[in-house]
């Protein structure tokens, strides 16, 4: 029994809210009122943050490198689009959950393929699944609208009360609330004994199995969960932009997502959110410099990050904020990206 209470007290200690976290969410909320003309891009950031959070669950906590996470994003996006287009589920929140569940089912089914094999096989299988779905969506263009995408999606008001407006205000608050709720859930999960066992698996699957962690079952569970999150992110994309086209499955989306997560750092949940903000700002900046060739600079950022070393960059970026936090609150509150998965 002592071991169990030990684990739970450890987990509880880790799960305590830090001041920096509260500040982070207050800042996020403040942005909504500070930049009322920027709702569209902020919605974009929130969606991307949620999507990156979902990759963080499998990459940062379970160590699965996926090059095809866009598969679940795409399935979520098309599910939400089709549900709204054919009027099957008109209420956006229920449709959102339904779309997430569809993606989760796909995640559950494909997880058995993914947990087999080593890194390279996983890369290929995840990439293959995303490409397969893209090919399927193109093939069944009578359902998906082919390369034109789904057209004429009209969203009903959220909970029958809040209609989507053209400035994206409703869309933004809707996305932010969804992100916050899902974040709380993810936070609860990664600090639970389940989350601790995932970290054990990431660090050493063999040893984790030896101390009695059911490795494969845990991986299936977290992969399904991540698929659910990605599906919700995709559904949010469709609901707030009222379109879904083939590029939701594109390889670039999965690759960008990796970049987002790597900028922010893996394995501490905020990485995806911070990464999304930095990535979107970088993208805007590069696009304003060279509208056509911004991809070059994004690539350069990736190369530099890897060559300099991810952990080193995060340490140096967090140096100043940590210094300030230490002055006010003491050592306990310091923000540390727990570990960067290799």
């Amino acid at each position: 029994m002592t071991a169990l209470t030990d684990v739970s007290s450890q987990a509880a200690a880790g799960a305590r809210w830090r001041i920096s976290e509260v500040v982070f969410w207050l800042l996020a909320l403040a942005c909504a009122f500070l930049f009322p003309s920027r709702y569209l891009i902020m919605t974009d950031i929130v969606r991307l943050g949620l999507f990156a959070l979902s990759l963080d669950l499998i990459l940062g906590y379970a160590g699965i490198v996926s090059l095809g996470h866009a598969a679940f994003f795409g399935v979520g996006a098309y599910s939400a689009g089709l549900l709204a287009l054919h009027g099957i589920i008109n209420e956006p929140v229920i449709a959102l959950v339904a779309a997430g569940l569809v993606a989760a089912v796909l995640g559950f089914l494909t997880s058995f393929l993914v947990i087999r094999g080593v890194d390279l096989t996983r890369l290929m299988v995840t990439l293959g699944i995303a490409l397969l779905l893209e090919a399927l969506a193109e093939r069944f263009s009578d359902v998906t609208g082919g390369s034109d995408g789904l057209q004429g999606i009209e969203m009903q008001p959220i909970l029958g009360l809040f209609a989507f407006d053209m400035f994206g205000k409703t869309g933004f608050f809707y996305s932010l609330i969804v992100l916050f709720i899902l974040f709380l859930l993810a936070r609860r999960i990664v600090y639970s004994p389940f989350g601790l066992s995932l970290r054990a698996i990431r660090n050493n699957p063999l040893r984790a199995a030896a101390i009695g962690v059911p490795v494969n079952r845990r991986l299936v569970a977290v992969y399904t969960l991540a698929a659910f999150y990605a599906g919700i992110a995709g559904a949010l994309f469709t609901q707030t932009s009222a379109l879904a086209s083939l590029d939701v499955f594109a390889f670039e989306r999965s690759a960008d997502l990796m970049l987002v997560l790597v900028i922010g750092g893996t394995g501490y949940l905020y990485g995806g959110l911070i990464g999304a903000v930095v990535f979107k700002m970088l993208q805007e900046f590069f696009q304003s410099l060279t509208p056509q060739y911004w991809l070059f600079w994004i690539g350069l950022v990736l190369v530099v990050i890897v060559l300099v070393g991810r952990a080193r960059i995060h340490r140096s970026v967090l140096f100043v904020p940590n210094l300030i936090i230490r002055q006010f609150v003491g050592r306990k509150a310091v923000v540390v990206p727990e570990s960067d998965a290799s």
Partner: protein
Amino acid sequence: MASVLTNLFDGVAYGMLLFVLACGLAVTLGLMNFVNLAHGAFAMAGGYICAVLVNNSGWPFFAALPLAFAGSAAIGIVLERALYRHLYMRGHLDQVLFSIGLVFMSVAAVDYVMGSSRVFIKLPAALEGQIDLFGVGIGRYRLMIVVICGLLTLALQLILAKTRFGSRLRAAVDDPRAAIGLGINVPQVFAFTFAFGCGLAGLGGALSAEILGLDPYFPLKFMIYFLIVVTVGGSSSITGPFLASLLLGIADVAGKYYVPKMGPFVIYTVMIVILIWRPNGLFGRTAAR
């Protein structure tokens, strides 16, 4: 019947082309366990070098091919010494991110320099049209590809099996640590092989401009094909990737001809099934490290 044979021939030509394009990747993966998604960028470099030489400087096509090889190999060795070698000991995630970064940079750079539209290389008249062999139409260009790639494959096999360098390379692939212990300079062997693989990719890129199409998105579009060749073929020998490329080439051509609506669906499904069935590739023998 004739059309079946023509398709088969096209498939073989396509497959051999894929082999020349991808065999360098097999070495990178097998020898250093390095996931290099940027391999297609070297192929694209070779293609564009050839295109510029032939179209703008008026070189004959066959004279430009060796230069495509040399140019890509030179780029390869510079990047290997400057960047790649720092990443051999890192995790796969870092390698993937790094090579995706390189792909993005190469795509945008080529777009900037050469424009985003598809580039065609002017072919000599001798390579155009078809010849009729026992009632089977065979494209001259494809015939040339089969000949060149066939000779290259033979040469590679001979180098690997018969020369001293080949045996060093095989030793290094089988067990790098033991190879270093025996006094083999593994980093040097690897740098040379990497450059050679990039050169082959460049040559393949030049040859494939006519068949696969050459535009700045080449490395992204065909990345998956190269990876399929290597993962399905396994990286422990040269025969595995060769058979895998032939299989892929024939399946892809046949798929596009007979079930055009299914598109690339067939290929991806086959790949996933094979990887589930044999995670180390159809012909792989070493366990994954």
